[in-house]
């Protein structure tokens, strides 16, 4: 009898074992760029952009679900599948684009870290080397258990934004109404911000990350139902945090007509309006999110590029065994942190540009994903249903239109 006791306990544990890829991916999603965009949305437009979180959540869930499903069914990463099914050319250009985009993203993360530390009075010449060292140290010296714990704590720190939102004492009735009832402004900056929000929430590299995480966990199609819930839960948490950031800024900065340029301004401006603690919590959240993403982005990028190109990869390999892997990883961290050291480096445009690049790359990644997820040879009975395809295609078309709109408008400005 005891045998079955042990097995059923295991079964409960499986849920927690499988729970994970979705939640961690979701946490990384609200990175430095995301926090900046949501802050500006709240400060400049109050609660009027809240409605967009519902369609964004739907799109996020649908897209992440496909990535997770592909991982569970094929047992292969996205870069791997693209290489095997579309050949070297497509893979090479996609990986090159992913590398450049993620270099931009890494710069944005370190910029966010530097900005957050400046709020605490730490100069970037000190904070950046420390940040880069922590990232490097976690990868090279950290043990699995320690790093997992650090990540879980980091994920929990995102709730500082919930507290920040509560401290701003928002009118919850009005917030709820704005979430449900769309209120679209047709001016250019509003649309730009809308596109920015979509771009920062649904980033291309996350699809690669999530799919590999599902593969690494060894999740089988049979267990997939639980993973689906993990993904949905993760997406909802992402958007809850986004909502809290917008609410925190809307209830204070917007009410007092304070214009901000980024997350740092938001944190500083919060102090006189919502109190010192709301401001500090906001800054801690930004520092945490930036460093958390800076840990994962360069390493993840190095893995996917090597996976697609067929180069050896892995931090347990020596430099001689896996030169490309270490070059990519080192370049991302050195350039990412190093470029921000220059005092002339404009932090806000960098964060913005990295999101534009994300937005431009995303439609291509979506098209590859759609082709793969509907391939019977890879997915078998797990291909998209007809209705699902209609939903994903409409999202892709909207995303492509939004991206075109964004590219055109950023060229004009």
């Amino acid at each position: 009898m005891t045998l079955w006791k042990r097995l059923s306990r295991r079964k409960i544990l499986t849920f927690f074992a499988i729970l994970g890829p979705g939640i961690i991916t979701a946490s990384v999603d609200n990175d430095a760029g995301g926090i900046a965009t949501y802050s500006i949305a709240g400060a400049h437009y109050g609660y009027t952009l809240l409605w967009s979180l519902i369609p964004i959540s739907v799109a996020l869930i649908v897209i992440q679900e496909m990535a997770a499903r592909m991982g569970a069914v094929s047992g292969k990463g996205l870069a791997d599948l693209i290489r095997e099914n579309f050949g070297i050319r497509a893979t090479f250009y996609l990986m090159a684009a992913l590398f450049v985009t993620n270099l931009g993203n890494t710069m944005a993360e370190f910029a966010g870290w530097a900005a957050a530390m400046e709020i605490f009075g730490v100069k970037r010449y000190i904070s950046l080397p420390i940040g880069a060292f922590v990232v490097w140290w976690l990868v090279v010296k950290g043990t699995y258990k320690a790093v997992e714990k650090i990540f879980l704590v980091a994920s929990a720190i995102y709730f500082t934004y919930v507290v920040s939102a509560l401290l701003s004492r928002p009118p919850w009735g009005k917030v709820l109404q704005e979430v449900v009832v769309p209120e679209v402004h047709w001016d250019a900056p509003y649309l730009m911000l809308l596109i920015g929000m979509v771009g920062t929430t649904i980033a291309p590299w996350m699809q690669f990350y999530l799919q590999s995480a599902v593969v690494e966990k060894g999740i089988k199609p049979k267990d997939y139902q639980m993973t689906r819930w993990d993904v949905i839960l993760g997406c909802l948490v992402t958007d809850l945090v986004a909502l809290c950031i917008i609410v925190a800024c809307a209830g204070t900065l917007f009410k007092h007509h304070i214009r901000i340029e980024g997350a740092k301004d938001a944190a500083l401006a919060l102090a006189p309006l919502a109190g010192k603690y709301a401001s500090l919590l906001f800054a801690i959240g930004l520092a945490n999110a930036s460093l958390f993403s800076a840990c994962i982005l360069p390493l993840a990028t190095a893995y996917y590029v090597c996976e697609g190109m067929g180069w050896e990869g892995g931090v347990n390999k020596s430099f001689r065994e896996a030169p490309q892997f270490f070059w990519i990883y080192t370049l991302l961290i050195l350039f990412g942190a190093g470029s921000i050291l220059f005092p002339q480096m404009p932090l806000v445009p960098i964060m913005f540009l990295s999101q534009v690049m994300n937005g431009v790359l995303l439609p291509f990644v979506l098209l590859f994903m759609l082709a793969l997820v509907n391939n019977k040879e890879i997915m078998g009975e797990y291909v998209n249903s007809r209705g699902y395809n209609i939903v994903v295609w409409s999202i892709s078309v909207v995303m492509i239109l939004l991206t075109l709109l964004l590219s055109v408008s950023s060229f004009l400005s």
Partner: protein
Amino acid sequence: MFFASRLQHTKVFDLSGRQVGTLQDLVVSIPQEYPPVTALVVKLSDHKHKKRVPWSQVLSFEESEIFLACRIEQVEDHPQAEQGMWLIKEILDKQIVDTEGRKLIRVQDVQLARVNGNIRVMAVDISTHAILRRLGLGFLSKRLGARLVPHFIDWSNVNLVSSKVSEVSLKVSLEKLGILHPADIADIINELSPDQRAAVLQSLDHEVAADTIEEMLPTHQATALSEMESEKASDILEEMAPDNAADVLADLPQEKAQELLNLMEKEDAHELRQLLAYPEDSAGGIMTTDYMAVSATVTAKEAIEKIRKEEPEAETIYYLYVVDEEEHLLGVFSLRDLIVANPDAKVTTFMISNVIQVDAMTKQEEVARLIGKYNLLAIPVVDKGNHLLGIVTVDDAIDVVIPTAWKKRFPRIYSS
């Protein structure tokens, strides 16, 4: 010498001298050594149809142009042979195992050569040079220096692991894998997809498969077994060390674990059920039931004979335990004590009766501590009534302190 990637889109002419299409792929016969091309897949000029042209109807074969020995209308489609694989569609860009380098590599290009009028697959190019060549950037590699020279893996050292490979070809191909050390096979298998993992394990013989599974990542062990035919899976479980087998079983769904236990030999299954009853972090959970025990009445000579007969595993040979008819633990002596003892001496005369032992429910950390404190190679595990249940060997105790799984999983921590 040809490169598969370069042959794509080569113009194909028939006997009338007119271009009838372009080369799309090459069909190669995998079971043969250095697989020969048995047919060409030609994409006809109408861009709709393709034809498999048997090698016997090819007049000349060059990178620049291919001539057929008859008119295209007369060509009869080459039968889709069991062992035939499409070189570009099914091998290029895929992952294969390099048995010499003992790792998984990606096929950047395939090198072919003309041998006695046949075109044969000679080697796999895995260099970055091949990537640049295929991107049309070959000129760059000269500037980038010597590191980018072609790096070929001879075809005789290549193993196909794709799930699309027919069973016959897979068998031929995987025979080579069996010569590797199980730890190397496990490293390779960890990087494969689940169906490939099952296919490779299934092709190995039971003992190698069992050793390989023990070296694999814990998350993959149960998955691999559940993807296999139950009959084969239960055979492999029997070959595994009981403590490891119990760990894997505990990770499987109830019904599957029960099914596998029912398929196993009665005695092995009974042992496993007992092991599964203990919490996984207790002495009972990490102990093995493979141990040497002798009755109090035997002599040193008889004990040595028993060792010869049972051929115990390396980790369990160093200590012998003395038990009475009811399996009560009476004493212990080492292999050394046994060898230096007078052959006719009763084991009770040189055994140590004050045995350092642990209860089955003792925490694993405490077990590891005792083994370390007393410099033991193994420690016996008993129940409340002092019945000998099994032993915890030093290697399993080390795993408690420094789990191998973490070290192996570390490289990909950021994705879990």
